[in-house]
């Protein structure tokens, strides 16, 4: 392969950022100016850097690494951190696991440097600057001592100042008294040192929250048929349900992670309006979800690992239907099942209920929260009081402008044109004046006051029209709008 360098703009100069093996063999190093490199080797091929693509690749590799442990964190620009506490024995020990990871990455065409240590700092340093080791536990200090100080994840100018002071290796730092080091080079230097040595605990922050309940199945032979995947999900769901039952909870949001043989990870998430424990119910929701996304089903060479996780759970108390309330409970469950079924196929936010908000602005009082969200308050039941203002039963979320003629400027409309047709008003009631919420518009533009009229047209249509703006006080040419339907 001919020498190739990736270049990027650093400061005002194009510099080499990454090199392939052939280019490195020529003696080029990252950070060298492109002009200098070209002067030495005119035949050097170059490519522009693409940080977004680098990031995407790192994310994709991180996805695939989730097959080893759910605790995967990004260490940009080119590193991944895997917390394998308690996982290694599943893969035949740490050394075997490291070997398997390396083989997998190599098969994908990636060259990786692996280091396994008891601390994030030590693993980071060893992977980049030291030898690849897979059993560093207890030997952190000895392994770190010969490494350059840059291995400690320090700031660039910290490294430069340490070099000026003649401190080049970690050993140099360890042999000095701590107080002067902190005074001269900043407390973060000691923090990094202590983290690498395990004197200070440093948790990794995984990319995704780790669910409390999950279960997975490794398949000896990859499966690719949708029905087989769903069956596996159903079986995993039952075992997930047993764990949830022990905790007295049920899953309200379930995520299935399908690991494809070639390293692509597909996540599918379904929600449920009531806590679930049965695998068959989960299978049904996933089946709906897959039908909705049928064009995305790309099994490739099949999936070899399927993981089911309860991302959100809720308390699930055992139900004991009363002697007379059995039917009511069954109906509630049937309705909740229907809502989940529809939501899984149509997507979230497609099933709404009517909510309310305490405001007198008509469209403000209308909210349509998605089912399952308890945020918006429910509407009060019908009020028998005849003093309640008459409201249309259908409302446009955005009032439509109409062209209206009124006999007197602040009277009801006589004729109006709506959606291209003229309507003659035969009767009308009003006005009902609805002022804007001035306390919300402080400092901003105040919407005009509205005068609402209920009108009946010649054809019998009953509509809710309003005139925006008080004639003579707020505007000289009031606008008319149609807002609702009574029929």
């Amino acid at each position, binding site marked *: 392969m001919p020498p190739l360098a990736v270049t990027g703009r650093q400061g005002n100069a194009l510099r080499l950022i990454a090199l392939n093996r052939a280019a490195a063999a020529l003696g080029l190093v990252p950070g060298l100016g492109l002009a200098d490199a070209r002067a030495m080797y005119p035949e050097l091929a170059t490519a522009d850097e693409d940080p977004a693509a680098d990031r995407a690749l790192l994310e994709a590799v991180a996805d695939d690494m989730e097959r080893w442990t759910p605790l995967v964190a990004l260490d940009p620009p080119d590193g991944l951190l895997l917390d394998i506490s308690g996982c290694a024995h599943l893969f035949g020990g740490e050394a075997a696991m490291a070997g398997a990871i390396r083989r997998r990455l190599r098969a994908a065409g990636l060259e990786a440097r692996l280091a396994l240590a008891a601390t994030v700092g030590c693993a980071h340093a060893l992977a980049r600057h030291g030898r690849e080791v897979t059993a560093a536990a207890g030997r952190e200090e000895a392994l770190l001592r010969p490494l350059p100080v840059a291995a400690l994840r320090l700031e660039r100018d910290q490294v430069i100042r340490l070099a000026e002071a003649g401190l080049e290796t970690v050993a140099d730092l360890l042999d000095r008294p701590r107080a002067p080091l902190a005074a001269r080079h900043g407390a973060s230097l000691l923090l990094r040192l202590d983290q690498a040595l395990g004197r200070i605990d440093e948790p990794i922050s995984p990319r995704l929250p780790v669910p409390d309940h999950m279960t997975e199945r490794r398949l000896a032979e990859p499966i690719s048929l949708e029905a087989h995947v769903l069956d596996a999900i159903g079986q995993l769901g039952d075992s997930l349900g047993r764990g949830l039952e022990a905790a007295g909870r049920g899953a309200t949001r379930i995520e299935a992670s399908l690991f494809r043989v070639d390293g692509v990870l597909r996540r599918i998430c379904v929600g449920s309006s009531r806590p679930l424990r049965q695998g068959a119910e989960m299978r049904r929701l996933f089946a709906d979800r897959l039908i909705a996304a049928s064009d995305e089903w790309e099994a490739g060479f099949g999936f070899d690992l399927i993981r089911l996780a309860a991302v959100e759970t809720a308390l699930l108390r055992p139900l004991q239907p009363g002697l007379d309330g059995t039917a009511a409970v069954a*109906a*509630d469950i*049937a*309705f909740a*099942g*229907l*809502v989940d*079924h*529809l939501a899984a*196929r*149509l997507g979230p*936010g*497609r*099933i*709404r*209920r*009517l*909510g*309310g908000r305490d405001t007198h602005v*008509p469209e403000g*009082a*209308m909210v*349509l929260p998605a*089912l399952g969200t308890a945020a918006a308050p*429910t*509407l*009060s*039941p*019908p*009020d028998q009081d*005849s003093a*309640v*203002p*008459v*409201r*249309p*039963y*259908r*409302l*446009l*979320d955005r009032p439509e402008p109409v062209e209206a003629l009124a006999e007197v400027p602040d009277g009801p409309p006589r004729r109006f044109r709506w959606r291209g047709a003229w309507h003659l008003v*035969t*009767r*009308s*009631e009003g006005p009902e004046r609805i002022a804007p919420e001035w306390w919300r518009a402080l400092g901003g533009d105040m919407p005009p006051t509205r005068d609402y009229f*209920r*009108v*009946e047209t*010649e*054809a*019998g*249509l*009953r509509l809710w029209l309003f005139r925006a703006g008080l004639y003579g006080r707020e505007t000289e040419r009031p606008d008319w709008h149609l807002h*609702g*339907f*009574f*029929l």
Partner: protein
Amino acid sequence: MERIMNKPTAMTTQDQLRQTIARLEAAAPGSRAGGRAGLARFGIAGLDDALGGGLAAGCLHEWAGPAGTGLCLRLMADALPGPLLWAGTSAGFRTAGYPYGPGLSGLGLDPGRLHLVLAREAAEALWAAEEALRCPALAAVVLELPGDGRAADLIATRRLALAAREGGAFAFLVRHRALTAPVAATSRWRIAAAPGPADGLGGLGATAFDLHLTKNRHGPTGRWRIVWSRDDRCFSLAAPPLDLAAPAGDRPDRAGGTVFPLRHAG
């Protein structure tokens, strides 16, 4: 049937199909497994009688005209307990308006019972309505399709009708414009707004609808103009039926009344 009894060994495919159809058709609306027979009554004797007592639950009723949804919701206010599902397309709700809680309360319907499905397209709304109709927990499903709703053709409505029979809920299909093609509905209506009767106080008075029953599996068709009173929350007849066989009360005026002698003005 006799023919089959005589030749039990040589039952043709045709006969088998006939039997299957007979079995499917045998499940009359009243004899559903759910046993949740319900009738939605207008409270108008002539109209309810023509329908065999009222609109039957577990059957599909088609309304042509945007006013159909309002009428269905008024009828559903106390027909069956349980949640209602209103399925339509997002675009349809945007142009025809979203259901408005305070206004629904005015129709006598608890807005908390109503659930909406905002589908991307008519086919999706149809699917959602069919699935919902199979659920025994619902009281009614209203499927609203903008335009003439041609997605709900004979086959689709047949599926809806079967699903309604299975679940036992009221099934309403509302098209904004009438479709002349045949559909598998128990009753087909055309509904239009009509000028309401004057209340004598200069106000709007009661709401009036023109109903035209164009297909009725259980009785005669006909036309009615009905009036809905917001205060009493009930329907009443505005004028005598227009062409249902009934006492001819709506003929042109015959000669009658008082004759005033005309006087020469000179």
